C-alpha cells in the first residue's frame, strides 16, 4: 500500500517535471535579457574589467557580496565558538 502510494507520488513528480521541461525555453534565449546585455556591453568601459562576472560580483552587485562575506564570517565565528571549550582545555 505504502509503496503504491510512493509510486503514484513519484509518477506525479515526474510528470510535473517533464511538463515543465516541455515548456522550457530554448537554451540561450532568456525571457528578459536586458540586464545581461547591459552587463556585457558596459562591464569593460564602466568598470574597466575584462571578467564581467567579477564586475557583477564586486561592482554592480557589491552589496550581495557583502552579505556573502558576512555569511562566511558568521560561519567561521560559529565554528570557532563551538570548538572554544576544546581549545581552552589545551591550555
Amino acid at each position: 500500500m505504502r509503496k503504491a502510494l510512493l509510486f503514484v507520488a513519484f509518477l506525479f513528480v515526474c510528470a510535473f517535471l517533464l511538463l515543465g521541461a516541455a515548456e522550457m525555453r530554448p537554451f540561450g534565449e532568456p525571457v528578459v535579457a536586458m540586464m545581461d546585455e547591459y552587463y556585457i556591453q558596459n562591464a569593460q568601459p564602466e568598470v574597466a574589467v575584462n571578467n564581467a562576472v567579477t564586475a557583477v560580483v564586486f561592482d554592480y552587485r557589491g552589496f550581495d557580496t557583502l552579505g556573502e562575506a558576512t555569511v562566511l564570517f558568521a560561519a567561521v565565528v560559529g565554528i570557532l565558538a563551538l570548538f572554544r571549550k576544546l581549545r581552552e582545555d589545551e591550555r
Partner: protein
Amino acid sequence: MNNHSMSVIVRTVTRFVYGLVILFGFYVIMHGHLTPGGGFQGGAVVASAFALLLVAFGSAGLKGQLNLHWLQSIEEFGALAFLALAFLGVGTAFFYNLLANSGGFLFGGSVPAGPNAGVLNAGGLVPLMNWAVGLKVMSGIAAVVIVMLVGSRKEEAE
C-alpha cells in the same frame, strides 16, 4: 613525527606541491578581474593548501607556523578592508567604484572594448576588493580547518 601524519609518499608529494598550490591561489586572487576566479575562489585554493599540510603532517606539523590568533586577525582585517573599500565611494553610492578609469596609478587604467589580452592595472576597487575577500576567505577557512582537526583529534584521544 606524531602518529597522525600520513605515509612518506604523501608527505613528500605535499612538500613539493603545497607551495605551488599557494602560488596558484594568489594568482587566482591577483587576476580575479581578468580571468575566471576571484577572491573567494583563490582564497579557497590557498586554504586547501593549508588543509593539505594538516592532513599530510598531522596537527603537530603546523603548530609553530600557523597561529590561530594571526589567522583571526587577518580575517578581520580582510572584512574591515572590504567594508572600508565599499564606503570609499559612499559620496555617490555604496559600493561605487570611484577608482575605475580614473587614470591613476592604483588600478586606474582603462580596458579597450571587445576581446583583448587584459590589463592588470585596471578595474579600480575590484582588484583591491578581490585581495580583501581573498585574505578573508583564506584565513577564515584555514582557521576552521585547523580548529576542527585539532578538536576532532582531541576527542579521538579521550
